[in-house]
């Protein structure tokens, strides 16, 4: 009886999503979607419409799960927000889904109306209206609509209305000027903003999983310490009063604590500590003469994966949230680092140096089923999309004695290993980290 109910529930869930995409299935054929012109009533709203169409089309295409059917093929050219489409016309050009929208001005600001149709089944599957107070929020409207389309069709949580914080780099490789910077997930220049002035070296920014706060490391007065930065208020604050270097910070899943490494000034040995940001209480989680760093919480907050050379070479280990029960999980040959727990909880992304190349891969949380996603001379800093389907990371070219080379860029890839692309940044970029959905 229970079984039957489960099956029914399962099917009804399945029926909810028009297209089921699982990560295990490898390369996915992108689903064709037609996006009509987004109609505006005047020149302003027409301009917003063009921008929106471009944002939505780019987002969906970049996900690797969709492609936008060429506009030149469209037979029907009307606004389909208020009228039933001629599905036959859209079937003919092999559009599986159809999105139509329009923009108008209202006393509350700018209003977008949209409808999403399943062409093959000849029915509407989504209808909504969004109003924003001003033009500055147009990009977010585009990302939000993209998320709704993605979620409605794939059954997965979207990730478009998010931002990426990263380290912007410029200057000679031996005197790099590094600044924290932030941008929309698509890297669009209009969304790009610097957060620090470049006076101090900054490294490894990471977002809190459920608010707009980042933690990062900064060399203020040449003292390397962990800080937090509230993006809403602009406030910056050192985390704890440590006599030695603090580094490798990450938030706990509830965003209330930071787990990080602290290097004891009497031994220079790095141990992992947890600091509660509300009570400022501190607990030490590791105690070993080896290097312990790069901690990352499981999304349920019960476990922490980290990097340690306690066995000789740097490997990956898992412990309970209080530091108990430490177990090595990395099994392959090579030097492991940078473990990051997926927000879905099922996988750990990592870097591995072996045979002269860096690899970014994923493994099960017990270390089984290690799989390389990308390999190159220098890859680092994998970070998960909030829906756990994609990774961003940075890739650096070889440098030469004359100071040339060494360019570093931020990349996006599906964890199946397909659909890699560069996320454009105005200067070089490294250490990317993804925000939660806004």
């Amino acid at each position, binding site marked *: 009886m229970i079984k039957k109910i489960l099956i029914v529930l399962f099917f009804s869930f399945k029926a909810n999503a028009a297209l089921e995409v699982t990560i295990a299935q490898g390369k996915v054929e992108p689903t064709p979607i037609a996006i009509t012109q987004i109609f505006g009533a005047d020149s302003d709203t027409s301009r917003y419409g063009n921008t929106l169409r471009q944002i939505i089309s780019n987002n969906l295409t970049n996900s690797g799960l969709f492609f936008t059917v060429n506009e030149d093929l469209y037979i029907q050219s009307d606004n389909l927000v208020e009228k039933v489409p001629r599905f036959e016309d859209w079937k003919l050009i092999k559009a599986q889904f159809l999105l139509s929208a329009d923009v108008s001005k209202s006393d509350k600001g700018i209003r977008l109306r949209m409808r999403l149709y399943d062409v093959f089944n000849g029915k509407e599957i989504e209808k909504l209206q969004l109003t924003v107070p001003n033009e500055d929020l147009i990009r977010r409207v585009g990302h939000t609509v993209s998320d709704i389309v993605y979620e409605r069709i794939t059954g997965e949580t979207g990730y478009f209305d998010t931002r990426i914080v990263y380290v912007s780099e410029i200057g000679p490789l*031996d005197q790099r000027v590094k600044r924290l910077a932030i941008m929309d997930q698509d890297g669009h220049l209009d969304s790009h903003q610097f957060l620090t002035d470049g006076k101090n070296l900054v490294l490894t920014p990471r977002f809190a999983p459920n608010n707009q706060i980042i933690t990062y490391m900064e060399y203020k007065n040449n003292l390397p310490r962990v800080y937090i930065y509230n993006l809403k208020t602009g406030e910056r604050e050192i985390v704890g009063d440590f006599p030695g270097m603090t*580094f490798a910070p990450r938030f706990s899943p509830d965003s209330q604590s930071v787990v990080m490494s602290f290097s004891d000034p009497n031994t220079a*040995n790095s141990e992992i500590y947890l600091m509660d940001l509300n009570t400022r209480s501190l607990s030490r989680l590791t105690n070993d003469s080896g290097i312990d*760093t790069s901690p990352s919480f499981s999304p349920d907050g019960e476990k922490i994966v980290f990097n340690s*050379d306690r066995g000789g070479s740097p490997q990956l280990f898992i412990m309970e949230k209080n530091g108990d029960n430490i177990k090595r999980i990395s099994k392959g040959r090579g030097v492991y680092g940078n473990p990051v727990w997926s927000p879905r909880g099922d996988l750990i992304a990592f870097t591995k140096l072996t045979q002269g190349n860096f690899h970014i891969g994923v493994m099960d949380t017990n270390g089984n089923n290690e799989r390389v996603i990308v390999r190159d001379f220098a890859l680092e800093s994998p970070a998960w999309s909030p829906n756990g389907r994609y990774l961003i990371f940075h890739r650096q070219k070889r440098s030469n004695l004359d100071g040339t*080379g060494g360019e570093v860029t931020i990349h996006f890839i599906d964890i199946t290993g397909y659909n890699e692309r560069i996320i454009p940044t105005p200067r070089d970029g490294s250490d990317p980290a993804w925000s939660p959905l806004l």
Partner: protein
Amino acid sequence: MLKKLFMLIVAGFFLASCAATKTEQGGDVDAASASSSSGGEITAGTQEDLIVNVGDRVFFEFDSSELTVDAQATLDAQAAWLMQYPDTNITVEGHADERGTREYNLALGDKRAFSVYSYLAQAGVDTNRMEYVSWGKERPEVIGSDETAYSQNRRGVTLVSN
């Protein structure tokens, strides 16, 4: 005898070329004056003096913070020099090559800096005169993605801080 003289010339050339390379955080050595100042313009007890007459740095093996025999010899000389100039304070910087993650290399750089710091302390240098800091792989001495560069970037550097 001739051989010895030749070695001295080579050593002198090596030191001069060391001084001509670019400087560390906070240590602004005028490279041109350092290499042309063998005539005795170097002020005793300065960074320049340390670089030219003692050696300001030691090198490490891959993924190691242990001091080699050569490194210990350099640090013995540094300790003696620091005893000679008791008003001189120093900061020891630990650095790593680019073949490791940023975070692991910060930890490794700290261990390297501390190896130098504690060796000098054991050799009698007052710890009140010394600080140490890790720069991980953020400040290479030599740009390049090969072992020649890496071997010079895995280093501990002693900087006169006053």
